[in-house]
């Protein structure tokens, strides 16, 4: 199935909307500076707008349901109303409440409870603890779409009465009520703003659009959305409110969410494919939430529909940051896969991404879950899968820097055997303290920062009167990712090759050189020998075997293990955008890496892993280190200019992805590199405000990345492209 949609009127509106987004991105960059994370969809508030939250203690903090609710309601009630007469959707979001606490850091959340007893060990292994981290699991939009805000309000009021004897539950339900009232009030004000704007609009098309926008917003303040456009607006309102609350960016299976409304409106003759595409375009422009399309339903039938194609075409026209994943599986409509690859190669914007159903389903089932649940666990985050509305996970926010674990082990070792034994010992200790941290988070987060928005769209929190982080969820599958795989595998491999097999170096020589950060001529000689040893990714090297062994060690301590309090753990390999931060924490390593240099990216081999840089070799290596329990070890692939220009590039990329998934791969993120553009943008980022690159699992404006980070992306892309 292939659809052709063309409507000049919409084309012009899309062009104007895109141009404004680029303008807004420029303004954001000028005001906020560089940010190494997703673009998000936020715009700047008017300069005159002052945030004056009602609840803050002397240190600029707040915690607990009541305080969060009061601040959130204030923010929603005062939130500026952004209206664009070209847009199908009213509103843009502008603030992140969770970042308004004094001293906020991306790498370390504000937390109202003392965990200093865990900190020495956490620091020792450079653990990213996840303590106090929010969101990173997925809502089930249907829970909100069916009753609407009015129905949700009724639901929490009923629950509050039901839990009258439980003081926390009452406070939580009252907080939920405040959150809903805040969102309703903002929606009402958006409606009024759209109506006001319509009064002064001269263009008839825009005026009609604004009137319809106002009608929809008024309706969905309380009533459930019924038409396609009403649903799109409702989803955007939830997304924006949830972003404003705590940056949550998980979406859902967008094609299946929208399909019933699309089919109904089409049958009623009130919606064309052009309308649907434009409205989806606006939803994707509004915020780059993570959505999946295609893939199997819970009962194993292909979910690809006309709606899937419309979403894909809307994304293709977006030409902006977008996080759309196509699930690749045996029973799929290959046309969707092909069209996805075509768009990826033609637009060169890093999307869509592709997830591998087979390994994800088989892997998740190894945790004791059914095939139906495993199929429903979809791509809704940077590197992660989640069961919408059913699961609490701390996905992508709990990491063990195994390069740091290696550093600790190496300092105590005098042979390869000792190093392996010490690595195992310290890795276990690192997992232990990480698991204790997860327990600590789960024991206190509901008092620190309850998930007021995501609770509403989850099965359990309202029904049980418990925050999702504290008993409200149906399932707890707590993610722990290892970071730095290639650095550690190459370190073990280099020692095995140079010290044990060839005996060109002694362990003591390596140790001395590493301790001195490879200083001096002798240090450089040792470094070159270590650096030139066979790498992980080359195929058949000692480092390749170590990478698999490190995965076994990861699984051995995490898979089918629980925290001391009994919460299930699931392993993955992923660094997120933190290769620089992790690297700064680690001294020189025996793979010839100097102190402070970045660690390796996700499950990727280090650049230069083979002279030919073979993509097939990379795909094979990354497939070989999949932990295989339903969480991912993504492959970050840079397709060089040569391959993308090939006469059969689409087939080649499809073949690569197919092969990788066949061998057990879980997620592929692809950047199509245009080396000249990247180099030019690096020279003067302001000239390329719309240049989007895939950083890790997410796409970001190149211009928004910090200089350090740009340097890293340039190095990786250009090196592999020329």
């Amino acid at each position, binding site marked *: 199935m292939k659809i052709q949609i063309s409507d000049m009127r919409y084309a012009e509106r899309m062009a104007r909307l895109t141009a404004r987004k680029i303008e807004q991105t420029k303004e954001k960059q000028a005001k906020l500076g560089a940010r190494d994370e997703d673009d998000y969809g936020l715009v700047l508030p008017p300069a005159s707008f002052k945030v004056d939250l009602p609840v803050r203690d002397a240190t600029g903090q707040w915690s607990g349901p009541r305080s969060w609710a009061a601040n959130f309601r204030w923010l929603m009630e005062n939130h500026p109303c952004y209206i664009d007469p070209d847009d199908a959707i009213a509103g843009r979001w502008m603030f992140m409440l969770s970042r308004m606490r004094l001293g906020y850091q991306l790498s370390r959340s504000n937390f109202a409870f003392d965990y200093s007893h865990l900190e020495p060990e956490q620091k020792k292994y450079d653990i990213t603890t996840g303590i106090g981290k929010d969101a990173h699991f997925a809502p089930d939009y249907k829970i909100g779409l069916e009753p609407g805000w009015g129905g949700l309000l009724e639901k929490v009021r009923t629950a509050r009465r039901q839990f009258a004897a439980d003081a926390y539950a009452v406070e939580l339900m009252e907080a939920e009520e405040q959150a809903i009232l805040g969102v309703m009030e903002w929606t009402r004000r958006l409606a009024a703003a759209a109506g006001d704007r319509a009064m002064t609009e001269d263009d008839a098309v825009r005026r009609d659009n604004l009137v319809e926008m106002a009608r929809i917003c008024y309706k969905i303040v309380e009533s459930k959305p019924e038409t396609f456009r009403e649903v799109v607006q409702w989803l955007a309102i939830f997304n924006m409110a949830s972003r404003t609350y705590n940056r949550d960016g998980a979406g859902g299976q967008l094609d299946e969410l929208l399909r019933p409304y699309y089919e109904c409106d089409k049958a009623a003759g009130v919606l064309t494919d052009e309308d649907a595409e434009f409205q989806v375009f606006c939803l994707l422009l509004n915020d780059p939430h993570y959505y999946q399309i295609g893939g199997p339903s819970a009962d194993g039938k292909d979910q690809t529909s006309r709606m899937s194609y419309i979403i894909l075409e809307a994304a293709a026209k977006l030409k902006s940051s977008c996080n759309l994943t196509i699930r690749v599986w045996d029973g799929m409509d290959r046309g969707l896969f092909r069209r996805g690859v075509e768009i990826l190669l033609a637009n060169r914007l890093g999307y869509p991404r592709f997830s591998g159903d087979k390994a994800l389903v088989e892997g998740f089932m190894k945790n004791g879950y059914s095939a139906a649940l495993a199929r429903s666990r979809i791509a809704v985050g940077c590197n992660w899968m989640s069961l919408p509305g059913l699961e609490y996970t701390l996905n992508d926010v709990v990491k063990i820097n195994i390069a740091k674990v290696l550093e600790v082990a190496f300092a105590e070792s005098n042979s390869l055997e000792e190093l392996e034994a010490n690595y195992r010992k310290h890795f276990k200790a690192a997992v232990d303290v990480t698991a204790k941290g997860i327990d600590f988070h789960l024991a206190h987060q509901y008092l620190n920062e309850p998930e007021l928005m995501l609770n509403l769209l989850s099965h359990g929190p309202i029904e049980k009167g418990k925050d999702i982080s504290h008993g409200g969820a149906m399932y707890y599958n707590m993610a722990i990712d290892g970071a730095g795989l290639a650095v550690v595998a190459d370190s073990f491999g280099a020692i095995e090759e140079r010290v044990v097999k060839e005996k060109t170096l002694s362990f003591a020589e390596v140790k001395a050189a590493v301790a001195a950060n490879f200083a001096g001529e002798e240090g450089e000689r040792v470094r070159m020998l270590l650096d030139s040893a066979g790498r992980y990714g080359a*195929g058949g090297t000692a480092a390749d075997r170590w990478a698999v062994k490190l995965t076994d060690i990861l699984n051995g301590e995490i898979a089918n293990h629980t925290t001391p309090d009994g919460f299930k753990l699931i392993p993955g390999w992923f660094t997120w955008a933190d290769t620089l931060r992790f690297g700064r924490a680690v001294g020189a390593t025996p793979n010839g890496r100097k102190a402070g240099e970045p660690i390796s990216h996700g499950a990727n081999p280090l650049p230069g892993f083979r002279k*030919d840089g073979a993509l097939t070799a990379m795909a094979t290596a990354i497939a070989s280190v999949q932990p295989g329990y339903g969480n991912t070890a993504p492959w970050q692939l840079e397709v060089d200019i040569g391959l993308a220009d090939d006469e059969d590039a689409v087939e*080649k990329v*499809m*073949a690569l992805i*197919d092969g990788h998934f066949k061998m057990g791969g879980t997620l592929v993120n692809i950047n199509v590199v245009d080396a000249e553009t990247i180099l030019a943008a690096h020279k003067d980022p302001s000239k390329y405000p719309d240049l989007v690159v895939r950083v890790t699992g997410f796409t970001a404006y190149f211009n928004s990345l910090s200089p350090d980070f740009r340097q890293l992306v340039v190095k990786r892309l250009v090196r592999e492209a020329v």
Partner: protein
Amino acid sequence: MKGIVFDIKRGVTKDGPGFRTSVFLKGCPLRCIWCHNPESQSPEIEHAVTTDEVCGREMSVKEVMDEVRRDKVFYSSSGGGMTLTGGEPTMQSEFAFALASAAHDEGIHVALDTCGFAPWAVFERMLAVVDLFLYDLKCMDAAKHRKLTGADNALILSNLNSIDAAGAKTWIRCPLVPGLNDSDSDLAALRDCMRSLRHVDKVEICPYHTLGLEKYAKFGRKIPAAVPPVPADIADIKRWRQICVLSPSGRKVAFPVHSMHTQTPIRCMHEFQSDGLDS
């Protein structure tokens, strides 16, 4: 059995269809004056004179196949396989045959990238285990061919006709060097030759480039005097298109432009996509 291999590249997308593992066998009977892999010419293992690089190492069939097998999943997902190249792979005819047989027995698609200069018996035996011949056609004029490559082209042309007569699938590759083998009469002769073949699937033009010149000094050789110092330009490549023909079956012959013996497609490739010659 062992042979001298000077490189194995995985994930190659230019030496035949799909993703391929190219096995480079050392040694070549020709001395093309434009050769940009001069280090591949001698059948012996060689040491560079200006660096500590070594060209060539002894490998067994098993060792090569262990490497080739690594990408098996991608051969089946992309229609790829193993390509024997060089140098001239038939210089090590026993080893090349053993490799091709081993791959063939495992169901791996085998392409043989050859200059065609070997006794017919070598190719005759290969027919059973090679799925695709990547056959170099450099010049139809015998005297000129001798001057440019050091060898007569009679054997090459007779082998090509025999391979075609045997029904083997072939892609023709023409390394063209401005001023050396690209006169109008050269091109017309090439075209006529290709018209006479029944099983040619594709014609690839490999324009001359100068990237290999620095390797001459590295491996202690002199650059042949007649080699043009500048690479082919777009005007040359446009003119060369006339060798592209419809195959006798009436099928359009695909016409990608590759830089000579490298994986990098020439940037101007899309310029030729409008004339309907692409399949």
